């Protein structure tokens, strides 16, 4: 018994990554609104007269149609949805980071429409070269983590249940939440109450809090990402060095 043939029309999507495939085709890793991540083959996409030319670019809001069975489907149509997003080079590396997070953490065929819409908003925001990049990345990470089922606890002490106070220090315990430092928990990382509250209310203006939040996000994401390091982060660092 084979899997049923699927046919999807004009689905909102973004290309996360592409690989050359055979002579002139391209294998695409696509993030769609209703089907999550999907693998598609764009046949002949590299031929001079292909209708896909110039369209199948990462970070571009697209409407795509595909059909086929099994794991990899065939792209039959792609058009640019709304206006063009040309990302400034300055924010490009951050956009690649978002793509890598989605590729590593979202499963194929599992719709994540909240993440999808936040992804679109983030990419749009990154098309402004003067945007506060860190704030966009942190708020995307927050949505992604919560949609993956690991909702962060940011308003109450996980042990005492008391409301987080901005002047206190907390240890963020994996799978549990923030615990005030005076308690005898030893694992986790220490973060100020102020930073926890800032993350909860999505206010990323205070540089000190932003630094804390970045540490917290990395702390929470690391076990989800596993041992393989994020390549976009490594490349970003390598580029900063030069």
């Amino acid at each position, binding site marked *: 018994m084979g899997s049923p043939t699927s046919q999807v029309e004009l689905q909102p999507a973004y290309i996360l990554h592409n690989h050359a495939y055979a002579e002139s085709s391209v294998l695409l890793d696509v993030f769609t609104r209703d089907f999550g991540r999907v693998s598609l083959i764009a046949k002949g996409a590299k031929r001079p007269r292909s209708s896909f030319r110039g369209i199948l670019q990462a970070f571009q809001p697209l409407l795509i149609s595909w059909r086929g069975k099994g794991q990899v489907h065939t792209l039959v149509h792609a058009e*640019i949805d709304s206006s063009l997003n040309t990302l400034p080079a300055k924010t490009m590396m951050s956009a690649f980071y978002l793509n890598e997070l989605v590729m590593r953490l979202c499963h194929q065929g599992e719709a994540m429409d909240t993440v999808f819409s936040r992804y679109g908003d983030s990419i749009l925001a990154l098309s402004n070269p003067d945007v506060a990049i860190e704030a966009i990345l942190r708020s995307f990470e927050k949505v992604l983590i919560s949609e993956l089922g690991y909702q962060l606890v940011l308003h109450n002490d996980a042990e005492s249940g008391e409301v987080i106070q901005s002047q206190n220090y907390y240890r963020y315990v994996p799978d549990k939440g923030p615990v005030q430092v005076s308690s005898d928990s030893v694992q986790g990382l220490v973060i100020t109450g102020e930073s926890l509250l800032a993350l909860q209310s999505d206010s990323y203006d205070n540089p000190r809090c932003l630094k804390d939040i970045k540490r917290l996000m990395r702390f929470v994401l690391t076990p989800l990402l596993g041992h393989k390091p994020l390549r*976009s982060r490594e490349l970003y660092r390598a580029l900063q060095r030069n």
Partner: protein
Amino acid sequence: MSKLLNELIESLRCLPGVGPKTAQRMAFHLLERNRDAARHLAKTMERSLDDIGHCQQCRNFSEAGLCDICANSARDSSLLCVVESPADQHAVEHATNFRGLYFVLMGRLSPLDGIGPDELGLDQLVKRLDQGGINEVIVATNSTVEGETTAHYISELVHQRQIKVSRIAHGVPIGGELEHVDSGTLSRAFSGRHLV
């Protein structure tokens, strides 16, 4: 099928775009109709693998320490064109009257594939810029997101050294009608318009 024949077919499959059927066709053709050419191919392949390395200066394929272009003293060594691949270099060389020198990256920055500055020999490019004598760097990487990222990064490296850097233009293809040009290219052609 004999063991050796199978091995030949399998080996031919390492070529891009060659599946089992094509590999079989190639093997039969070489053995049945064109043994001399096959022998020649095998010898050339062996020699190429032994002798062809990378040009010390531009990283392109070359049997000598310096490739023909880098070794040619008639070329303008104050102009440097950066391209992604030998095929791109060949295309520029044949389509334009560029008579400067090249630097071939042998790839592009690709964050999700783990291709970074080391893989592209950018330290070698920096060394070359620091040696002096270069007045302009023309960045001719592809017009893809990875190509643009690469172009941006190289431009920064060049800028820091107070050397002029330019990026090839993007626009409407010759003989192309606006109606049929994709919107990305058209918007780039518009924003990159020049005075006449």
